[in-house]
C-alpha cells in the first residue's frame, strides 16, 4: 500500500498561543501589568505574593489568580491582602494554560486592575510550554533549594524574565552560595534581572516594588500607543 506526505507545519500549542496573544492585547488595552509566577513547590511563591500584594495594595488596585492541583488555601491566604483573588484548581493538570486564565478572569473589569499576578502550579517543568499572556514571568528560587536549580531546569529559567531568590534570611543556615546562584542564572538566561528577597523580613522587597512601579509606567505607555 502506498502512502503520500501531507505538509502541515502547525504549532501544537497554536490554540494556546492565540488565546495568550488575545489576552496580552486585552491586558495592554486595559493598562494592566500582568506578572506570572513560576517555581518549584515550596519555594515561597505564595508568601512572596502575599507580601507583595499587601504592599502594592496601598497604592494600586491589585488582583491575583492562583493555580493549584487542589484546595483553596492559597486564595484564602492571599485574600488577607486583597479581596480580588481567585483560585484555579486544576485537578490533575500540572500547569496553567491560557484557557484557564481566560475563564478565571470572567466578569472582572480589567480596567479597574493595575497589577494582576498569576501564580502557576508549583512545577519547574511543565509551565514553561504555556504562554498565559503575561507581560513578565518571574521565576522564584529559594535559598534552601540550592544554587544549581537554574542549571537543572534551564527551560523554565530561560523562558522567564526575572529571577527572584527567596528565603534569603535562611541563606547562611543553608550554606547558600549566592555568587554561584547568580552565575548559574546568568548561564541559562544571560542578562536576566535578579532580586534577592526575604518575604519574612521584607529584605529586598523595596527593590521589587520599585521595579514593578517602573514596569507599570512602561505598560501604560504601551497602552497609550495602542490606543492611538
Amino acid at each position: 500500500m502506498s502512502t503520500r506526505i501531507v505538509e502541515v507545519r502547525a504549532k501544537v500549542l497554536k490554540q494556546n498561543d492565540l488565546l495568550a496573544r488575545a489576552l496580552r492585547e486585552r491586558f495592554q488595552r486595559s493598562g494592566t501589568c500582568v506578572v506570572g509566577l513560576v517555581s518549584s513547590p515550596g519555594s515561597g511563591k505564595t508568601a512572596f505574593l502575599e507580601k507583595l500584594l499587601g504592599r502594592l495594595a496601598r497604592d494600586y488596585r491589585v488582583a491575583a489568580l492562583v493555580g493549584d492541583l487542589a484546595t483553596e488555601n492559597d486564595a484564602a491566604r492571599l485574600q488577607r491582602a486583597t479581596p480580588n483573588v481567585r483560585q484555579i484548581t486544576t485537578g490533575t493538570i500540572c500547569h496553567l494554560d491560557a484557557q484557564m486564565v481566560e475563564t478565571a478572569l470572567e466578569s472582572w473589569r480589567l480596567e479597574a486592575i493595575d497589577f494582576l499576578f498569576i501564580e502557576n502550579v508549583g512545577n519547574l517543568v511543565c509551565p514553561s510550554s504555556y504562554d498565559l499572556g503575561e507581560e513578565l514571568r518571574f521565576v522564584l528560587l529559594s535559598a534552601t533549594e540550592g544554587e544549581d536549580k537554574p542549571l537543572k531546569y534551564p527551560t523554565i529559567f530561560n523562558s522567564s524574565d526575572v529571577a527572584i531568590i527567596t528565603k534569603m534570611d535562611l541563606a547562611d543556615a543553608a550554606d547558600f552560595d549566592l555568587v554561584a546562584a547568580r552565575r548559574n542564572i546568568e548561564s541559562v538566561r544571560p542578562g536576566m534581572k535578579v532580586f534577592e528577597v526575604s518575604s519574612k523580613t521584607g529584605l529586598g522587597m523595596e527593590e521589587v516594588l520599585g521595579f514593578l512601579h517602573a514596569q507599570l509606567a512602561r505598560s501604560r505607555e504601551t497602552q497609550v500607543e495602542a490606543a492611538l
Partner: protein
Amino acid sequence: MHELSIAISMIDQIVEESESRGGLDVEAVHLKLGAFSGVDKAALLFSYELACEGTRLQGSRLLIETIPLVIYCDTCQKSRTPPSMYQLCCPVCQTPGQTIVSGREIEVASLEVAA
C-alpha cells in the same frame, strides 16, 4: 509531566486537519520537537499512543525529529550550538547568547497518509 496534554492538543489538531482535507487516513505523524521545548520525547511517545485510543489516529505512528538548541552569537554574527542546554553562550567566543534561533519547537511538520 504535561506530555499527555501536549499529545491531546496535537491529536485534536491533526484530527481537525485531516477532516478538513476530506478525511485523511493518517498512518504517521512527523513532529519537530525542540531540545529546549521542555517536552520529553519518551514521555510524549508514550502519551501519544494512549491519547490516540478511540480516535481516528489510533494505530498511527509518531515520528519525532529532535531540533537542536541554536543561539545567535552577536559577536561572531553567526548561529551557534551552545556547549549545553544550561550554558547559553557561544562555543567559540563565549559571548552569552540572548537570542534563541531554534530549539523551542513543538510542531507537526507533516502527515503520512494512505494514498
